[in-house]
């Protein structure tokens, strides 16, 4: 009887969750970049034209790397960029919290524009996603090294 590789399936679920989180975050922002610009400016890190460019490019980057985490050809690069973005998001939320800014996160679109942010929740959520992303990234890296040195895929052969 085939032994179920629980770890591999768990990592697949984590990969899907991280990917879905970025895809769901990207879609409403692509549809309404004006509202997202307001959220970006609220962090008081970038403003004006630069904030507008960020609000146009960032959602597409989130969409591409969200899908990218599921595509073998670009999954390592996507994983690295997702981890990097999550670190930036965590730093921005911590910074806004420390400065007592009254802003909306803008993380998942415009419906929550008027809601004040719960920074602790936002930071915890992003830390959890970051941990998941790092786990997926390590798995992809090991898998890539194994294939390059000619070793068979990981243990049970389930290389997600």
């Amino acid at each position: 009887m085939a032994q179920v590789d629980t770890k591999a399936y768990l990592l697949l679920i984590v990969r899907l969750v991280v990917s879905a989180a970025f895809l769901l975050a990207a879609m409403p922002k692509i549809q309404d970049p004006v509202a997202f610009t307001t959220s970006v400016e609220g962090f008081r890190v970038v403003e004006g034209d630069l904030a507008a460019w960020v609000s146009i490019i960032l959602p597409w980057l989130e969409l591409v790397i969200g899908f990218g985490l599921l595509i073998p050809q670009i999954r390592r690069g996507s994983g690295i960029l997702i981890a990097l973005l999550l670190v930036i998001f965590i730093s921005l939320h911590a910074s806004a919290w420390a400065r007592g800014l009254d802003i909306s996160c803008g993380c998942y679109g415009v419906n929550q524009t008027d809601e004040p942010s719960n920074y602790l929740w936002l930071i915890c959520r992003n830390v959890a996603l970051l941990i998941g992303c790092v786990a997926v990234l390590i798995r992809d890296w090991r898998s890539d090294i194994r294939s390059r040195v000619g070793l068979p895929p990981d243990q049970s052969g389930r290389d997600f």
Partner: protein
Amino acid sequence: MPSLLKEFTLIAALTLTGAAYSLVSGLAPLPWAEPELAAGEIRLTDAQALDVIWVDARPYEEFAEDHIPEALFFDEGDWDSGLIDLMNTWLMQPRPIIVYCGTESCGTSKRIAERLREALPEAEIYSLKGGWDAWLK
């Protein structure tokens, strides 16, 4: 490492293609275009042309430090007393009410303006686009 570089290049190309689509299709306004006004908002230049009641929805420390002349401090947490002060001022001389908070994106002014419209349905109530930051500019 070269394969990783290829991955980043491909990701960058796809991202820029998407961003270009947003701009070309009109999904996103051109970053250098004049920003639009949301419902219930008013620009500072328009507000300054009117005789209005300014309502400061920022934290008290910021209000105490500086505020728009004759602005009323409004603590959302102490809604009733804030509303009574505002109603007294408005009833003495009815005129548009403009609520402002700290920045373009602070939700407080929009939220308070929305609640005030329910409490004072006969009053003309706006939130200031750009908030206190716009006043400072």
